[in-house]
């Protein structure tokens, strides 16, 4: 993240980071700067909710009840309202996730090309079940709907990185590459 981010894009860089700081203050330093820039781009504070939740998740790794309360405070919204909106969107993790959030597309395009085998392989190798985090805290594997790259099945997104044309046999190598 550049220190002097242009306000036009300050709110649009959803990022799932390997490193998570669940207790970090919202917001400080460059993040505070980004938060303030986001507010300048909308006629009211409510509209900043999605970008600010993204920002908070980038810092803390997930959207905890404390995060919800804090974001509500920052934007003059009730915690229940923030929770309602956050729970509408699948990208906000309302539970902590592993260091690597592995999203396997099982949309129709990928499913036609055996996406389920890829998903199974990830589950097998990380020894987890869908949505659950591995014991070492490293992996959370989830199945997601179409990621918008259907010509390249199976599409897998790990944190901020998109992998295209992933075959079941390549999963092991991909996992190795992460570390």
């Amino acid at each position, binding site marked *: 993240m550049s220190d002097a981010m242009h306000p036009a894009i300050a709110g649009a860089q959803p990022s799932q980071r390997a490193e998570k700081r669940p207790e970090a203050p919202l917001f400080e330093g460059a993040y505070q700067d980004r938060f303030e820039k986001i507010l300048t781009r909308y006629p009211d504070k*409510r509209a900043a909710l999605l970008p600010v939740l993204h920002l908070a998740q980038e810092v803390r790794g997930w959207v905890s009840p404390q995060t919800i309360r804090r974001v509500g405070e920052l934007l003059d919204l009730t915690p229940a309202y923030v929770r309602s909106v956050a729970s509408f*969107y699948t990208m906000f993790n309302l539970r902590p996730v592993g260091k690597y959030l592995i*999203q396997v597309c099982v*949309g129709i*395009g990928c499913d036609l*090309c055996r996406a389920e085998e890829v998903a199974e392989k990830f589950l097998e190798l990380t020894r987890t079940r869908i949505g659950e985090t591995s014991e070492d805290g490293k992996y959370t594997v989830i199945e997601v709907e*179409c990621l918008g790259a259907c010509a390249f099945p199976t599409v897998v*997104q790990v944190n901020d990185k998109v992998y295209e044309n992933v075959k079941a046999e390549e999963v092991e190598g991909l996992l190795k590459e992460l570390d």
Partner: protein
Amino acid sequence: MAYPYEHPRETRVLSKYFGDEDAIGIDGWIERGGYKALAKALGMAQDAVTEVVKDSGLRGRGGAGFPAGLKWSFMPKDGKLPNYLACNADESEPGTFKDRELMRWTPHQVIEGIIIASYAIRAQHAYIYIRGEFVDIVRVLNGAVVEAYERGYLGENILGSGYGLDLTVHAGAGAYIAGEETGLLNSLEGRRAEPRVKPPFPAQRGAFGMPTTVNNVETLASVPGIVENGADWYRQWGTEKSPGTKLFSCCGHLQRPGNYEVPLDFNLKELVYDLCGGPPEGRELLGVIPGGSSVPILTADEIDCDVSYEGIEAAGSFLGSGGLIAMDDSTCMVRAVRRMVEFYDHESCGQCTPCREGTSWLAKILRRIERGEGREEDIPLLLDIGANMAGKTICPLSDSAAVPVVSSIQKFEDEYMGHIRDGGCTAKR
């Protein structure tokens, strides 16, 4: 380098620079003739720009095919309220991935279109609502927006014209329904992306209660070419009712899946067999969904039509978003339909009873049939649930969920009956 495949029979207008790394940055884009259309537009009267787009016959590429120029002309011109433009980059319809490539390879083509459209509708602020999962695309787009600001294509007094525009990139957070234009507006306002009851339409009351135009990425990307070269230039392609070229995202069981740009009078069968190479070696084509998972499936022998809005409609489906999904004879139709229905179940915002409850009921029944626990009476039941879901809700997602079920039963009832009789799937997947 073409991306991922290029075919000599394509007509590359929008996708001319796909695969060309140098076209991404602003210098490369300007070298390739970029931002000339903007300069030209800013020298024209606002309504004259709208007129050209109207004359070109450009139709919205987000799915509904509404004429773009006509939509712009609904915007108030009195300047009493701030007008907004929202570029719909939420692209989440299964089988559709054209906007992604447009933004990835030619972000300035999209931005230029946004600036011209904003000028025409007298907007001072435009938003690009991009689906949050597009992390890498967002990065490219963000870079391009900053460049456009730095070069004075955005901000105050653009190219000395006196016209000013701010552009903000706004990332969604995982909700297909945020692609429906009023769901998008709610989402942009920091709300649940629940579609709104219409009327009022966005041009009357849109983002933040103000007049707003919502246009798809591809629609807007088509604008610079039209403004620069004129309506007739655009009409050299396609049909009277469907002028121009269009990107088709082709996926599924194809030898060369990818985006192909063809004029709208191109033959669908040739698109599938020539450009995409048809199904993999040794397989037969079973069916084609021509316009994203929300449109009816066509059988292999129904696709000898042109890809215009009216051509595909005559064949029994819709052009939709141009997301073509091909299925060969290894496909389990029940499974494929179940997957599509599960998608709608997952994405239903849940406001409307028929959609919220109907989608999950359909999915349950399909899963049961797939498991081999289907009953013959499930077929009429599925059709009747579909009838109770279609045309009865706030937005067409409910209809979309019923479409694959109803159309696949109409055309592939044997597949269902096979599952019911044989206690499960016998497809050689």
